[in-house]
């Protein structure tokens, strides 16, 4: 994974800002420095889930287990009590219980629990069983309340010799010639078997939850591994790339991760354009500067050889003029490079075109360019906002303005208006406009003829053209009643359109 720094290619982006990966370390180390690995986080989450879930399952299954144990052993109790109640017969005017073995065999299903029973007559006197087994006082009312219950059985908890026990009381009604009344059978049992059963159910549920949790954790490892495998492929692909290869990554990724490749692709696209712009700038600059610099050199050499002072003075003055216009050309070329860079990288914000026009007027550049020329600002009350980069727009406005001042006829007007959902920043001069053949070529990247003259004509409008297309607008020329108008049209944002 580690790789020699020499392979990384240029560490700076064309605009000279440090790249994100300044230290040249592989991307994985960056991830290791982040708070926690995904695996760790998922594992921690699963563990937390298991812990919370485990407590939940424990509570739920304990409750469930207790209920299940209570129900099943209550049924045994009830069965035993009903067996005993069934065995009661009236002999010689009194109820006699032939205690059935089956009842006790039922109760012995809880093998280690102590058994309590009592059979009492209507008056509450013990017929058989243990003296200390007696339904609680509330039993009579409860029985009345449940009089319509099919069995009339009442369950209750009590203690027997300091041990918790569960009881059921079942009434048996007699209406015989020699005995009439209710005989109550009470059967009880300690709770060992119930508690055992509840414990076992809880334990089983917890074991199941634990196994499930472990499986979940294993599954999470597998899923994360397989989900992140494309990342490794991308990383390998990136590392294997030629440093100047800025074509998009096409390795398919899960939807969640494709955000990353999309961002990377956009970033590389931008990088690609900027590298391209750099290349253009360099070739343009080389191309455009070669002729004027050669002319400068020739004139300078001529001036050196000139012996007549007056002539030499004249030649030096021309040399100065040429140098100045070469400086202007350089300015414009840099400003164009800036515009191209900014339109790609600067955030798009709401910009009021009136501010742009005002700034172009107030900067006072035109005073240097054409001293004394008349300049008129035509703007309305309402703001005209577009989404763009203000600095790029200002460059465009300045170029439009200087173009009109340089080539047009005063007075020159600069204005802002809206038409058919477009915001328009225009500059108008009072002349008839350029020749048709020049108009056709205007706005091209560079104008060989202009460059050959050491002038920046055409380059200025090509900047405006670039700004227009960068923000989704266009550049139009029109002959108006007042003269010749160059207009930068930009779409108004939806909500104000």
């Amino acid at each position, binding site marked *: 994974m580690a790789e020699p720094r020499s392979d990384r290619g240029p560490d700076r982006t064309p605009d000279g800002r440090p790249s994100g990966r300044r230290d040249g370390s592989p991307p994985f180390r960056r991830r290791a420095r982040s708070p926690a690995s995904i695996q760790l986080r998922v594992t921690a989450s699963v563990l937390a889930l298991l812990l919370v879930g485990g407590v939940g399952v424990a509570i739920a299954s304990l409750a469930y287990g207790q209920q299940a144990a209570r129900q099943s052993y209550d049924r045994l109790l009830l069965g035993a009590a009903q067996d005993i109640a069934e065995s009661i017969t009236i002999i010689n005017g009194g109820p006699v219980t032939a*205690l059935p073995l089956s009842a006790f*065999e039922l*109760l012995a299903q809880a093998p280690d629990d102590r058994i*309590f029973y009592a059979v009492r007559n209507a008056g509450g006197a013990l*017929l058989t*069983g*243990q003296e200390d087994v007696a339904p609680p006082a509330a039993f009579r009312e409860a029985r009345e309340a449940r009089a319509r219950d099919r069995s009339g059985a009442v369950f209750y908890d009590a203690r027997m010799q300091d041990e918790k026990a569960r009881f059921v009381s079942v009434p048996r009604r007699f209406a015989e010639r020699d005995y009439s009344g209710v005989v109550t059978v009470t059967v009880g049992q300690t709770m060992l078997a119930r508690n055992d059963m509840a414990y076992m159910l809880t334990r089983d549920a917890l074991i199941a939850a634990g196994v499930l949790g472990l499986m979940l954790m294993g599954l999470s490892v597998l899923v994360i591994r397989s989900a992140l495998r494309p990342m490794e492929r991308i990383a390998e692909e990136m590392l294997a790339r030629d440093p100047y290869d800025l074509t998009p990554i096409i390795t398919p990724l899960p939807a969640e991760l494709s955000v990353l490749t999309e961002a990377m692709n956009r970033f590389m696209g931008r990088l690609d354009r900027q590298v391209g712009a750099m290349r253009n700038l360099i070739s343009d600059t080389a191309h455009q500067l070669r002729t004027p610099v050669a002319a400068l050199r020739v004139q300078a050499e001529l001036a050196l050889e000139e012996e007549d002072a007056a002539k030499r003075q004249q030649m030096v003055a021309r040399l100065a003029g040429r140098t100045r216009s070469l400086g202007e050309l350089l300015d414009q070329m840099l400003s164009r490079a800036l515009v191209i860079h900014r339109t790609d990288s600067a955030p798009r914000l709401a910009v009021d075109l009136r501010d742009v026009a005002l700034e172009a007027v107030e900067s006072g550049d035109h005073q240097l360019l054409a001293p004394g020329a008349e300049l008129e600002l035509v703007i309305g009350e309402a703001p005209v906002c577009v989404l763009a980069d203000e600095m790029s727009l200002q460059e465009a406005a300045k170029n439009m303005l200087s173009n009109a001042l340089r080539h047009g006829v005063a007075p020159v007007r600069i204005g802002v208006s809206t038409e058919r959902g477009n915001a328009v920043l225009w500059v108008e001069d009072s002349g008839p406009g350029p020749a048709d053949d020049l108009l056709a070529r205007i706005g091209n990247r560079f104008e060989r003829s202009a460059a050959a003259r050491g002038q920046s004509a055409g380059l200025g409008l090509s900047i405006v053209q670039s700004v227009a297309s960068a923000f989704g607008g266009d550049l139009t020329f029109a002959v108006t009643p007042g003269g010749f108008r160059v207009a930068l049209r930009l779409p108004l944002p939806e909500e104000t359109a």
Partner: protein
Amino acid sequence: MISRFALLHRLCRPSPTGTGPAAPYEGARALGPIVLGLTAALATALALLSAPPLSAQEATARFGTAQGTPFAVYSTTDIAILRPALEAFTAANPDLSIRYEQWGSNALYAEARQQCRTGAGPADVIFSSAVHQMVELVNSACARPYSSPRTQALPETRRWRDELWGVTHEPVVTIYNRRLMPPGEAPRTRFELLDLMRRADPRYFGRVATYDIEASGLGYLLAFADSLEATTFGALLEGFARIDAIATCCSAEIIEGVSEGRYLIAYNVLGSYLQLQSAPGLNANVGVILPEDYTLFLSRAYMIPRSAGKPEAAQRLLDFLLGPEGREILRRSGLVFERDPDVQGLPESSERAVEIDPTLLIARDRQRRASFIAQWRSVFGDAEPAP
């Protein structure tokens, strides 16, 4: 041997016998008639209550040296039967000595119940053949739990709640007088016994004996187990009635009677008591039958009362009796029966253990007991059994 007997002989033992190992009994026979009369008077009044008014131990003995810390064993087992086991125990545990008290089963139950109720009492061990009474004591939370590898090794049918353990394994047999009864006539099953009684041979009139179920907790338990086991029980009662069978109290008395020829057949005798009567010429007369239809097996129940003052000593005795040494001694004493297929023709399927479990509570049920005894009395009559 450091031990002494002080036998308070009472109730239904007619005479001390022989000069064998059981010889050191000393009669206190003068008490006999008085208690007998008293018992007779109260029997009717207290017929429905579980404990007839037996209130004192029958005999006491000491085992071990004077230096040993004494602990008390209350038992229904005759001292002579348990003597080898207890002597071996005190020999192996010189720091302990045993005060052994021999009680009648009903009296022992009443005493244990009393000690449980008051929460205080001298007994550290209760060891009774009346297992149903012991189950009721455990059910009333009178016992102290104990668990050790040896108790855990007992089969489920011989322990309950880790509070009651069946230490012995003794067959309940039919015995007969070999001299007076031709071997062919000896009943090998209950059906043969029934047939024999139905013939109403005058030779057998008044000469078939069994336990008095009111006087003996063990006798009641055995009869009750019979009644649950098979329908033959009703027919047996009818047969007993037909030939005027004798219901009497104690194992020793029954065995002596058979040996001396007073009884020809005795039904439901604990086999281990035969070992006791080892006087030469006595057992020679007694033939033993393990009924082939089914033979009940009884395990005497060992319990450590909750009120025991020295439970550790009781636990050590229990582990000793369940261990290999104790078991071998018990086997020699006839308390642990081991199948010997070459000698005994008894198929294993006819072994019916009296299981130590809560279903024995039925035997203690007041009304069920009353009706069972009433049924019994309708055969044997209300009066005390004929001597």
